């Protein structure tokens, strides 16, 4: 047994100067018109709350608080309830996400074949913990319970493309190529 050092990231990937445009910078009118476009596909029934939120997130990349208030009005659900629903489900984000979404599978098959080492390696390389986004909004790192591609474990999904039979090294190199 020996004392363990705390987790110290060595370096983050080089950080771009310009922040990618995010809906955070949307003017209220722009936000309004984008939301109206989404709402057009729905009737405003309370039961549509989750599909509405999913569509809004698809349009904006995440769910800003102002959008949640509009959704609450549209579905005639108290804003507090909308917030409760958003925070319950893991796929809703309240803050802007990175341009590249990296999801590391932590399913059982991936776990016994080294999924955690892959997560640790990527986390060290990006300098963010699982669930974090790099400051330059280039990368978001997420842990996912299972993609159901267990036979090809361990699996990493980058921008909806599934990479199989990964190693920590291969995963980090794949991410570096996204630069």
């Amino acid at each position, binding site marked *: *047994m*020996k*004392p*363990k*050092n705390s*987790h*110290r*990231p*060595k370096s983050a990937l080089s950080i771009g100067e310009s922040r990618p445009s995010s809906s955070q910078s949307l003017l209220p009118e722009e936000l309004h018109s984008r939301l109206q476009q989404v709402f057009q596909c729905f009737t405003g029934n*309370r*039961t*549509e*709350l*989750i*599909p509405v*939120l*999913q569509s809004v997130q698809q349009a904006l990349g995440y769910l800003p608080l102002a959008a949640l208030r509009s959704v609450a009005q549209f*579905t005639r*659900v108290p804003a507090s*309830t909308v917030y*409760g*629903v958003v925070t*319950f*489900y*893991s*796929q*809703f984000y309240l803050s802007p996400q990175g341009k590249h979404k990296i999801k590391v599978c*932590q*399913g*059982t*098959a*991936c*776990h*016994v*074949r080294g999924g955690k*080492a892959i997560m*640790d*390696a990527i986390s*060290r390389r990006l300098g963010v913990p699982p669930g974090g986004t790099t400051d330059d909004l280039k990368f978001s790192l997420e842990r*996912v*319970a*299972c*993609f*159901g*591609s*267990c*036979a*090809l*474990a361990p*699996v990493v999904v980058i921008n*909806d*493309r*599934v*990479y*199989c039979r990964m*190693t*920590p*090294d291969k995963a980090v190199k794949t991410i570096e190529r996204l630069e």
Partner: protein
Amino acid sequence: MTFDEVKQKAASRWSGFQTPKRPRILLGAGTCGRAAGASDIAQLIRAAAEAGSVDADLYEVGCLGLCYAEPLVEVAHPGGPSILYSGIAPEDAEAFIADCIVGGKMRTDAALAVMSDEGLDGVPPFRELPMLEGQVRITLRNCGRIDPTDIDHYIARGGYSALSKALQMDRDNVVGEVKDSGLRGRGGAGFPTGLKWEFCAKAPSSEKYLICNADEGDPGAFMDRSVLESDPHSVLEGMCIAAYAIAASRGYIYVRAEYPLAIERLTLGIRKMHEYGLLGDNILGSGFSFDIKIQEGAGAFVCGEETALMASIEGRRGMPRTRPPFPAERGLFGKPTNINNVETLAAVPEIIARGSGWYSQFGTEKSKGTKTFALAGKVLRTGLIEVPLGTTLDKIVFGIGGGIPEGKEFKAVQTGGPSGGCLPAQFLDSPVDYETLAQAGSIMGSGGMIVMDEDTCIVDIARYFTEFTKEESCGQCAPCRLGTTQMLQILTDISAGRGQPGDIELLQEVAESVKAASLCGLGQTAPNPVITAIRYFRDELDAHIAERRCPARVCTQLLTYRIDPEKCTGCTACARVCPTGAAHGEPKQPHVIDQDKCISCGACAEKCRFDAIVVE
């Protein structure tokens, strides 16, 4: 078009597919196959076709279940047998296209099987592959054999005939047939399906719902994904039959958002059904009307629980509620509702078409029929299999799965995901059925089966599952919310070398309380991984606590890394990869690891090409 005309058209298209006039390529393009390289091969073939160098028909089919051999490409030339090739590497793909597709040759080095009754040039017929031995494919009957985007393929293979037959039967007889078949819920709990239908059918209401639970959340399970991607109509037909039996007019499929391809296939399938009059008003002229809506999940494991799933469809937080009232009395929007799992529904058309007697010939006395399993982990042939219930674990792991790779020792097989347990070698001879697994302290679960070898640490696995259930607990009932947190804390301490005498007894006590007092299935089964770990692997827990030792060398905080100076060549690979600067040294001189800086991440051991890193 009448259904007979539909069938005729489908049959003629199917015969064209079966006896192609130009080369026919079937590409295993489920999510797994695509990831393993099928997408790249498809791209190359399409590019070659556009350039005019390939004249062939390319179909993206689903999963044959031989995931270990992905990517799988099947090539048939007019008049010849269809040859199944496996593991075509990206750099080999162009040569493969030139040889096997354009050249019409057979590459025996890459050929896995011949898709007919007879072998060819030493290549065995498909059904004689060792992975197929003992399998009975009912749910997986069409997977990998048909184009999942073509409803005609499904119809030509007997699809929707069961629906047509059911619509001419009395509703009670449809329910009776399913009851007699002995089919039990394949989502995990194993409740008799026919009985569930009967409860809902008898509930007095003019409005009822049918839900297909495709929220396959167990880590390590991918049966439902494969079926939805490879043969969506089998599930959709099963839904229609179930809806007719219970007189439901509206249906939902609740699919997890992690399965985009499954959602795509279902959406297309539903559209095609409408075109053919198999869905919507007055289905096949029977007077019965039914429609299906797809609801995407938003990432919550607990929504696999039926009352939580209904809350989620209603647009609320997916939290389970107490039962009774059961969904059959008061379910979605307060109306009688029947919920079945994907695999359960996919079996229904075959039961109606071939009769309950045919189905119940498979399986054991109390567990009838067949069950699909997702075989993964430390096993040679990973993939999707379907066997009669009652097949022994030994036959699955060592027969179908081919045993443990790299000559390692079998340690345990985990069934039922986070709700199940790890069963050691003594259970290899046990039949896999609902009762036997429950007696052993595990559960059938949805069908994930993860094989573990000597390098798997039981404390780590128990901790892994407990962390999962703790994260996924919805938090409304205290036994589950607090109990899983406490179990995780104790297991974390044990794996970090902070275990105390008495920890195991405490763990046992907490586990039993959580099991007894939790509100829903998630909490009631969450302690199973811990309880089985204590029951079957107590020695290993003791080694962690008493000796501060991880026998499988997994718990990193109990490991020390050092460099063997005899083997180290001073290549600097470890120093470059070390995240804390612990591994260091002069080039071409033996390196050392500074134990104060080392965080035991294992990066050096992974990088070292000279086997010089010693892990103790």
